[in-house]
């Protein structure tokens, strides 16, 4: 068995040579630096796959025309193992390959660590990390690839306060940088809305297997709303199940993307009513383009991952912006200039929503992609859209 597995990469390599020989178009490389192995693999893998599915759709349609040339898109991935040291190495690899546009890293420490390299090597990168220092001046090359929790949090809490009469909130977070920072943002937002935060100190270790003991102190308080700050998709169903089985009656929400199948596997009906942030795959809002994307994703990787929804946009933005200004292909300054004025239609959503860069109010410069804040609620194995909002 061992031998066969070792042969696989060789075969894969040969195949990739064949395909690149057959391709007639010049290739435009787009980078991905993120975590695709180890405990956090699911973040990076769903990210990488959504890029690969997107690229495959483009290539099958004959490539993308930027300036006078039609390019095929190739995704170059680097596994940083969630180690900031490796993330830097990954960024260096991207620079070496002449890549100027990179998606990732997936976590705060990696995103902060690659900043010097990205700025020296003229790489624009799209981290899935929320610290404001990454996007405010003097930082110049990072673009937030999703809605930050300090943006989505207030919207969700306000909606629940107005519509569900939520008055008390409790927060729970993994004892790690990203979730703790997100909890802090969430608490601030809730307090600003005048909600009563009755617990914000419960944390759990990343190696927790059973969440019953973790959740006991919170269930006792019976808050109206329990926020799972920065919860990993693997942990969400277990937290929900434990809370519900212990008799928790209130609402549960999070500001990160989740996967419906994982929720169903792990918590079944107990997960009904769970509120999370999604991308564009719910039937109410998705376009035909989104359906094609999901179909392609399943063709390529066997099973869709709803987390990929939230990560579908970065590649789209990169390509659309390059189309708008072909000079940016090898010049990130051009890219930055274009960002100021860029608009294009959003292919993944029904209606006439647009792609544009935002972030003036949060970062003082346009360093965030504008995507609609889609808030989903889980019901019986699938997500339904609760409401959609715009973020600036």
């Amino acid at each position: 068995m061992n031998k066969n597995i070792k042969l696989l990469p060789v075969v894969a390599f040969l195949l990739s040579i064949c395909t690149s020989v057959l391709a007639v178009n010049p290739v435009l490389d787009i980078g991905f630096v993120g975590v695709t192995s180890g405990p956090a693999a699911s973040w990076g893998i769903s990210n990488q796959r959504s890029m690969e599915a997107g690229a495959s759709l483009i290539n099958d349609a004959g490539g993308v025309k930027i300036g006078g040339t039609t390019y095929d898109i190739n995704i170059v991935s680097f596994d940083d193992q969630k180690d900031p040291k490796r993330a830097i190495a990954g960024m260096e690899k991207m620079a070496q390959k002449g890549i100027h546009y990179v998606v990732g890293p997936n976590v705060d420490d990696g995103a902060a660590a690659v900043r010097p390299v990205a700025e020296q090597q003229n790489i624009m990168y799209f981290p899935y990390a929320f610290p404001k220092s990454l996007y405010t001046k003097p930082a110049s090359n990072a673009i937030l690839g999703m809605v930050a929790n300090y943006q989505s949090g207030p919207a969700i809490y306000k909606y629940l306060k107005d519509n569900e009469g939520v008055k008390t909130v409790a927060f729970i977070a993994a004892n790690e940088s990203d979730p703790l920072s997100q909890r802090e943002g969430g608490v601030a937002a809730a307090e600003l809305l005048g909600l009563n935060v009755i617990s914000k100190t419960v944390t759990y270790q990343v190696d927790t297997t059973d969440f019953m003991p973790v959740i006991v102190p919170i269930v006792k308080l019976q808050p109206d709303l329990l926020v799972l700050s920065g919860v990993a998709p693997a942990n969400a169903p277990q937290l929900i199940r434990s809370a519900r089985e212990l008799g928790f009656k209130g609402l549960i929400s999070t500001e990160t993307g989740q996967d419906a199948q994982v929720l169903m596997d792990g918590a079944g009906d107990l997960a009904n009513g769970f509120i999370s942030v999604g991308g564009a795959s719910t039937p109410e809002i998705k376009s035909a383009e989104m359906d094609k994307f999901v179909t392609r994703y399943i063709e390529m990787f066997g099973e869709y991952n709803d987390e990929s929804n939230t990560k579908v946009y970065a590649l789209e933005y990169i390509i659309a912006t390059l189309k708008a200004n072909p000079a940016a292909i090898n010049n990130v300054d051009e890219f930055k200039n274009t960002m100021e004025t860029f608009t294009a239609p959003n292919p993944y959503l029904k209606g006439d929503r647009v792609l544009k860069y935002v972030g003036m109010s949060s970062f003082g410069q346009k360093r965030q992609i504008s995507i609609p804040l889609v808030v989903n609620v889980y019901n019986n194995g699938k997500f339904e859209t609760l409401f959609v909002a715009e973020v600036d």
Partner: protein
Amino acid sequence: MSKASKLIYFFIFLVTILGIVPWLIEISGRWDYYYTLTSVALLSIASSGVWLTFYIGRINIGQGAYALAGGYVVAILVTKYDVSFWLSVPIAGLFCSFVSMLIGASILRLRGVYFAMITLVLTEVAKLTAMSLPITNGAKGISSIALPGELSIFGISIIPDFSTLANVKLAFYYVAVILMIFVFAGMYRLVNSRIGHLCRSLQQNEELASSIGVNITILRIIAYSISSFLGGIGGAIFISISQSVYPTTFQVADSINFMLNVFVGGMGYVFGPMIGTLFIYFGWDLLFTTGKYQLLIYSSIIIALILVLPNGLLSLRIFNKSNKREAK
């Protein structure tokens, strides 16, 4: 090996890493290798510390803690107290030494797997401490750390301000490899001096060592504090490259990797950590093209390596010729 041929080897080594490697990078245009090799140099410094604790017979899976502590000391000194980077690196090292003496005094009595485990816990403690202290800025880490400034003595500039340099990567490369040369030269000297023999006597039989009058307690603490010093400066310089430090910058995985570097290079050889780090870190880097099979191939190679060369890369014949003196 005669003294003359040793000097020749050393000279060849110096010319290679200070001259030939940068030249090769220059003509091949593989600029990314500067960072890779800089990391190898820094991580091998920390690994050589781990090696020293192995040399006194202790399995150390706690070096990540000191690398992290070193990183934070520099980050705090540079960002909050405006201390020169060049001064804060040795301070970071000494801080780690001092802390390790306090901790070592109680844990160095433990042996074998017990010591290994408690050091593993130490790495976790370091992370959690960084996460809960106000001075380390908790979970949010410290970012936007300035590049190393100018180092001048009596008004003569020895090292220029890094932010004025055209090629920062080359500068970091030189800093890292020159430091690595000093560390390994020192380590070579240490091991081949009487201290090294005493350490070996400790590794083999602590009772006998104390019966011939060796103060094993002090010797253990000295070795451990040197080890932690090296971990501290390795981490300290690293964070000036990333210009940021987080509680997870060095973690359990790193502690285990430091240990693997030592194993892979060979526990009986002073230069084992250097070769081991080069192999492990560079190997992962080269396998990057294999995509999702990267980890599978990487781990298969490690397993094959330990089956074929259970005593490390340097136990290969060709290396052995030049390493006989240190061979156990």
